[in-house]
């Protein structure tokens, strides 16, 4: 299976095609509903003024996301209580499968463009706005296996950091190191989407079924 290292170059992104299984190795950041809304409102559309540590987190995220990967994931994390006597945190990903990506459809392309992110991991695929962004930025959509949370957590070798824990454990930005993280490319930088194809074909079958009886 093809191995892809993070950060990812534009050349590598353009060489990835729909249907190709790959493994990812490097550093990625989790981010889902709250994060996408917060990023777009605070830093991209600027309809909301930065508050608290917003600007510090933004600066810390920029180098992590440039050429990097964002993962739609709300993990189960152990080690949420500080270890006595040093008070250090020993976070560990216990279960970490993908969440449904389509909820980020209004935000995704703008976030990818703003931070120059090269890959988004999730499940269920995304829509036309994101597919257009895949070509423009460019970036690809990597599909992980939904529900395979214990299995995928094994590819997370280390939790490096966490931002915005006040969003709650599932919604925080977890910075993680992964090794051989298994995914399939289902939307590429050439305008191809496996999800659009399956939807169209299944709709054709549905119309035939509805025409009966």
């Amino acid at each position, binding site marked *: 299976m093809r191995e892809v290292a993070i950060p990812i170059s534009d050349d590598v992104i353009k060489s990835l095609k729909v*249907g190709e*299984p790959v493994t990812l190795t490097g550093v990625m950041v989790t981010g889902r509903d*709250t994060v996408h809304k917060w990023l777009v409102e605070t830093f991209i559309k600027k309809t909301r003024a930065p508050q608290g540590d917003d600007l510090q987190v933004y600066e810390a995220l920029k180098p992590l996301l440039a050429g990097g990967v964002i993962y739609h*994931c*709300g*993990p*189960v*994390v*152990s080690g949420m209580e500080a270890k006595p006597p040093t008070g250090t945190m020993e976070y560990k990903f*216990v*279960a*970490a*499968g993908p*969440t*449904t990506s*389509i909820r980020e459809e209004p935000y995704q392309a703008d976030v990818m463009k703003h931070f120059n992110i090269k890959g988004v991991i999730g*499940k*269920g*695929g995304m829509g036309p706005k994101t597919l257009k962004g895949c070509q423009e930025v460019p970036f690809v959509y990597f*599909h992980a*296996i*939904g*529900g*395979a*949370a*214990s*299995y*995928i*957590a*094994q590819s997370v070798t280390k939790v490096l950091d966490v931002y915005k824990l006040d*969003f*709650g*454990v*599932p*919604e925080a930005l977890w910075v993680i190191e992964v090794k051989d993280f*298994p995914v*399939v490319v*289902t939307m590429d930088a050439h305008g191809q989407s*496996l*999800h659009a*194809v*399956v*939807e169209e*074909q*299944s*709709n054709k*079958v*549905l119309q035939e*079924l*509805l025409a009966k*009886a």
Partner: protein
Amino acid sequence: MPDLTDEILELIRRTSSDLPADVEKRLRASVEKEAPGSAARGALETILKNVELSRQNSTPICQDTGTPIFYVKYPEGWSTRKLRAQIRTALAEATKRSYMRPNAVDAIYDKNSGNNLGGDDFPYIHFDEVEGDELTIELMLKGGGCENIGAQYSLPDSRVGAGRDLAGVRKVVLDAVQKAQGQGCAPGILGVAIGGDRGSSYLASKEVLFEKMGSLNADPKLAALETQLAEEANTLGIGPMGFGGQTTVLDTKITGLSRLPASYFVSVSYMCWAYRRRKMVVRENEVIYD
């Protein structure tokens, strides 16, 4: 009345980390239906590896440990107030032990409680007093991805040409499966309720998911429709994860309710492949897990 907190904690651990045998059996049978080397087959193989790993390590099958839905059947003399408190204590402890993800978010203030306890609505607990001396607690964990693609239709529905009869029910259920695509973590299990009001209909579509897979519906008309729907849904070609393939739906369960003359609701609860439901029975001093 005994304190069942530890036993309920064990029920939660089992439900989150150990997929029931009837579900695993269906998943294993599906692998053979998918073409070797296909993304669909790869997805099912990964799913099965994950099932084994979660069981071995007592880790959640899916990180979305869902809405905890408890159904408690208690004999006369038990205190539902105390049982509720025990369930809540066990759930908070299960969250601390990483069997469960903190999943209760205040919808107005957007705050995660951190321990899976919201108001009286979270976890969802339903109590029924029953005859005899056995107490049973059933638990279902239903993730948000599949919950989001649940659908309710009010018949007639001209968009799909569905009238107020079982032929119409067939049409709207197939429509719901096609609309869901892979979003609810296909292959899915369909819970369907016909009739009721909007609330009772949705609730019944979830309750029917407590039934074992492969058990035949006592109503021959519904049994036939269940088989037909699962077969026809699998011709849609959506496949595991929506990658395309033969396995879109593992099973269909249908139940009927009384309806008002004016209303004809069909509610579809889509359950993801991570179909987590377990039961414990308390009999004298013995606790039995299914």
